[in-house]
């Protein structure tokens, strides 16, 4: 907490505002590019059919208390008996979702496209920020932080005497990267690129769980 730095207004006009505006515009551009590259695939009728059966079974389970026990049992047999039940899969034939995903080249291609449309603009923006704006103190966050945050917030400036709450331009870029996600979901609607990456992470990590998407 030494004396306050005086920041030049030219930094505001030529670093802070342009950087933020460019980040927003690149986010919008990325959204539309990934929308263009997304190939519309015709869903496999068999998979759709299976999904509908599962939805019906779930409805049955949820409404089990509202129908007579006999009717419920009849329906349960219809779904799960071992000869010709709709949900019964013979042992050994069940393939897991992940193996299925990798056997389908279109799926991998799609993921690749999404990945690329995410990584390329980020690398380019980072290189651009590094090239033009390295070494600026661009902003000051309005709350104090401990010394631990120095490497996070003053990335690119090697001065240990500057107060930690001053933010270098490279770190302002990172702040924008994380903080603008909410703004994008507001201006671009629900299906923007960041949502896709989250969904992708989940699909590659665990099984597909639609309820988890909302939690993130």
């Amino acid at each position, binding site marked *: 907490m030494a004396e306050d730095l005086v*920041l*030049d*207004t030219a*930094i*505001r006009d030529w670093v*802070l*505002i342009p950087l*933020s505006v460019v980040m927003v515009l690149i986010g919008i551009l990325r959204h539309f590019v990934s929308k263009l590259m997304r190939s519309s695939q015709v869903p496999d009728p068999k998979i759709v059919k299976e999904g509908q059966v599962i939805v019906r079974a*779930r*409805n049955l*389970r*949820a*409404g*089990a*208390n*509202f129908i007579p026990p006999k009717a419920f049992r009849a329906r349960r047999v219809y779904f799960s008996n071992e000869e010709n039940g709709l949900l019964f899969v013979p042992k050994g034939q069940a393939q897991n979702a992940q193996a299925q995903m990798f056997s389908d080249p279109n799926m991998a291609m799609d993921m690749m496209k999404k990945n690329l449309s995410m990584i390329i603009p980020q690398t380019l923006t980072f290189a651009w920020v590094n090239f033009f704006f390295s070494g600026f103190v661009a*902003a*000051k*966050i*309005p*709350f*104090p932080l401990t010394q631990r945050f120095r490497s996070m917030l003053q990335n690119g400036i090697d001065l240990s005497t500057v107060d930690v709450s001053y*933010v270098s331009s490279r770190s302002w870029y990172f*702040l*924008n990267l*994380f*903080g*603008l*996600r*909410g*703004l994008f*979901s*507001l201006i671009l609607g*629900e299906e923007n690129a960041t949502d896709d990456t989250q969904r992708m992470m989940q699909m590659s990590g665990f099984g597909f769980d*639609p309820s988890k998407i*909302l939690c993130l």
Partner: protein
Amino acid sequence: MAGHTESGAYDKSTNDLQTTNAENLQSNMKVIYYSRTFLSIIAGVTAGIFGFTSVTGFIFYFLIMTITSIGLLSKTKFTVYSYFESWNQLVLDGFLGGLMSFVLFWTFAYDIVHIF
């Protein structure tokens, strides 16, 4: 999980078969997420213009989020369980995601108005 345990929450079983409709529930969650994000951005800009620093700003954020929760609660006509599965969803969902946006816009507005 939309089980039948929730049917106990209703006095009269006006609902048909399912007690919760998964799609409607998701749409409700989305509404919460949007309103919280929007309000955290607005709150960030407001806090920056007023020039709140350190703890005051975070208190302001908590205040706005509390007001949002109360607003959403009154929007559900104080019957949370007919729109959501639990109170946590209404009160806590999107809280941390909004904090990031709040800090960004707070810093931005504060710098433009007060620092330069």
